């Protein structure tokens, strides 16, 4: 098992690519940069596939995850955080998604970024992101996972602020970074608590300890150690995965290049939170309260973001909010214990959201940088491939059979419906969010591709994107069509292959069989399809005919301004903080205490020197006397045992 034995190869390749491009790429022509970036990611994708194949073989032999420590990173007392990599079924899914989608997006980027400056820089960052993401998913302990976690945060910051000359871009980068800090803080606290509880941060140790029978499940509404730890971890997840209340950075992250939005802010990074929650599902299952919170937050986010998505005019922002709401779905799934469903939706979402973003990118590329949907329209004739791909993505996300999201979203809603605590409410809200989703997605379609064109022919001459862009589009379109078919048999009483595949990790929990469940699932899926259709019809009703940019007032205005959340945050959090740091931390603490201390030390030294300086009279005789004094002291010390009887009249 060559690859499995040294798993580090998989993350190392992108790192090498990043290093090479970052160090030497500036001088090189695009072709070489391309070959390095694509080569590293592609090879690491192949390695991943090979590793998965080997792992499955290994799993046949002995039924457990593959864990291999490579070297000790931190060893302090009884604490050990090693560079240990782990491979189990959950990781397999994430690994394939990350490397596969990542590779496709690399390919796409070569076309999309062809005319941008800082080409090598972009690919260096992108590879670096791949590296950290792979570390994140392959990590076998929380510390290493946190390394990847922070690393992807860093790359996200770098890539959002890729056009660092644009103020809004760099601001968005900072915003993303800072907001993530809050989440990371929670995450770290969670880690510390876990270490205090289990005296280790290795997944295996922690989960074994947690799954012991004597570890009681903390009942609902009770805040035990595990609950608190899980909540803290979930805070981190909300930060990374843009859940309420920390979602605000994600829409602004659209300032970055579109492939970045696709890769980082739709397909992979933002799902890290979901992955982390799923990874520590054992802890969550022992803390129903936390699960409940997760479910509520996820559900709320799904609905909330969807409502904002309704009225956005920027094509990428619409997608951003849809991402947020889809992530909400995933957390809803995790919250109701359907981790498998969550991961399933994560995968499908990776496909179709990447597809949508890349298509949007293709549209923007075609429109020469135009992002406002009100300045588009009637593009379906001009850019057919993009149009069809976009349409595929839309149908997929809207949840029409047999597209991917139908299955995944369906299983989520089903799980929500079945969950004992307030399941119906969650289901209802989720369904509503589904309706809204299909509405705003089809609104996007109509505004972008139908109706008469609302742009100036003379300035913008629409053209289809090159093959390097459309190729990945088609692949992703295919995936978002078929991605859900793992669960296809479940619909007809068969078994859910995906859930089964993940069962070694999550245990054969959900996908409850039985006639009743079967019929119920049918009903629910029909309801879901109806809901999606409803959204479709409303959108058709509103936007299929000739439309103008509506003046926004009332509810529309509120939504258009995203509930003024940013303004509220600014008022409640940002300004007080700024005031504090300006008037207290800067003026008092830094200028006063710290600088004061430093300068004080310096002044003190100067003063002492000024005092002692007078011994440096330059007069040799004084120096001679100093020598004598020194000699007296030394001899006094040396001869002390002999002398002190002499001095104090002792008798030998």
């Amino acid at each position: 098992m060559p690859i499995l034995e040294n798993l580090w190869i998989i993350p190392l390749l992108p790192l090498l690519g990043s290093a090479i491009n970052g160090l030497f790429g500036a001088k090189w022509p695009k072709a070489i940069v391309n070959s390095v970036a694509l080569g590293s990611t592609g090879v690491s994708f192949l390695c991943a596939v090979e590793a998965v194949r080997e792992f499955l073989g290994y799993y046949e032999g002995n039924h457990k995850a593959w864990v291999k420590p490579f070297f000790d990173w931190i060893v302090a007392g009884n604490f050990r955080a090693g560079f240990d990599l782990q491979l189990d079924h959950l990781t397999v899914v994430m690994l394939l998604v990350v490397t596969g989608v990542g590779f496709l997006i690399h390919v796409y980027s070569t076309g999309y970024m062809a005319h941008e400056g800082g080409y090598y820089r972009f690919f260096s960052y992108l590879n670096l992101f791949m590296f950290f993401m792979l570390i994140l998913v392959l990590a076998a302990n929380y510390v290493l996972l946190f390394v990847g976690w922070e690393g992807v945060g860093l790359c996200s910051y770098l890539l959002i602020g890729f056009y660092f000359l644009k103020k809004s871009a760099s601001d968005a980068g900072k915003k993303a970074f800072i907001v993530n800090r809050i989440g990371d803080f929670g995450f770290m606290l969670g880690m510390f608590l876990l270490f205090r509880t289990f005296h280790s941060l290795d997944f295996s140790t922690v989960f074994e300890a947690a799954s012991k029978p004597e570890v009681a499940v903390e009942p609902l509404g009770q805040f035990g150690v595990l609950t608190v730890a899980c909540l803290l971890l979930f805070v981190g997840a909300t930060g990374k995965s843009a859940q309420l209340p920390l979602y605000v950075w994600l829409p602004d992250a659209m300032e970055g290049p579109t492939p970045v939005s696709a890769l980082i802010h739709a397909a992979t990074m933002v799902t890290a939170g979901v992955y982390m929650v799923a990874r520590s599902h054992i802890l969550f299952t022992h803390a129903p309260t936390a699960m409940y919170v997760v479910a509520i937050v996820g559900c709320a986010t799904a609905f909330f973001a969807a409502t904002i998505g309704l009225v956005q005019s920027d094509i990428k922002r619409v997608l951003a909010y849809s991402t947020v709401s889809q992530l909400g779905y995933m957390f809803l799934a995790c919250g109701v214990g359907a981790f498998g469903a969550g991961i399933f939706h994560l995968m499908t979402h990776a496909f179709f959201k990447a597809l949508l973003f890349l298509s949007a990118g293709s549209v923007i590329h075609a429109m020469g940088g135009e992002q406002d949907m009100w300045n588009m329209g009637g593009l379906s004739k001009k850019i057919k491939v993009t149009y069809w791909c976009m349409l595929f993505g839309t149908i997929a996300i809207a949840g029409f059979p047999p597209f991917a999201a139908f299955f995944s979203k369906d299983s989520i809603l089903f799980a929500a419906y079945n969950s004992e605590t307030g399941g119906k409410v969650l289901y209802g809200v989720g369904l509503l969010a589904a309706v809204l989703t299909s509405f705003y997605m089809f609104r996007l379609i109509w505004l972008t591709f139908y109706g008469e064109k609302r742009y100036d022919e003379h300035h913008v001459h629409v053209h289809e994107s090159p093959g390097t862009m459309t190729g990945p589009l088609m692949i992703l379109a295919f995936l978002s069509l078929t991605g859900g078919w793992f669960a296809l048999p479940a619909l007809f009483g068969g078994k859910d292959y995906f859930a089964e595949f993940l069962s070694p990790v999550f245990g054969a929990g959900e996908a409850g069989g039985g006639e009743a469940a079967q019929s119920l699932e049918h009903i629910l899926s029909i309801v879901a399809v109806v809901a999606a259709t409803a959204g479709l019809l409303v959108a058709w009703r509103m936007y299929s005919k000739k439309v103008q940019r509506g003046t926004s007032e009332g509810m529309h205005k509120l939504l258009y301004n995203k509930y003024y959340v940013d303004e509220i945050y600014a008022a409640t959090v940002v300004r007080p903080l700024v005031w504090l740091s300006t008037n207290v931390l800067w003026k008092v603490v830094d200028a006063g205490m710290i600088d004061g201390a430093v300068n004080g030390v310096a002044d003190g030294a100067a003063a002492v020197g000024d005092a002692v300086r007078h011994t440096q009279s330059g007069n040799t005789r004084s120096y001679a006397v100093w020598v004598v004094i020194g000699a007296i002291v030394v001899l006094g010390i040396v001869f002390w045992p002999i002398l002190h009887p002499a001095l104090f009249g002792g008798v030998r």
Partner: protein
Amino acid sequence: MVPTNYYLILSAVLFGLGVLAFVFKRNIITIFMAIELMLNAVNLAFVAFGQALGKSDGGVFVLFVIVVAAAEAAVGLGIIILTARNRRSLNVERVDLLKL
């Protein structure tokens, strides 16, 4: 035989006088001589110990000390000549550039 103590005390006294000259004299050459005087005192102690312990090592040390003193005198006097040339004075208190 003369007790070793006598020699040692004599050498201590001479050393003390050397130190006294070292801090008391102003003429740089005389100060140099004071150093030589201290060296001689030490030599005396060496020889006395050598005799007391019935070994010749003391004598050997004295030879080395003398050699070192000779070398020192050669270089030191060269320096003194330079100093006298540049500063037009042999008074160490007038050669006080070594300060802030």
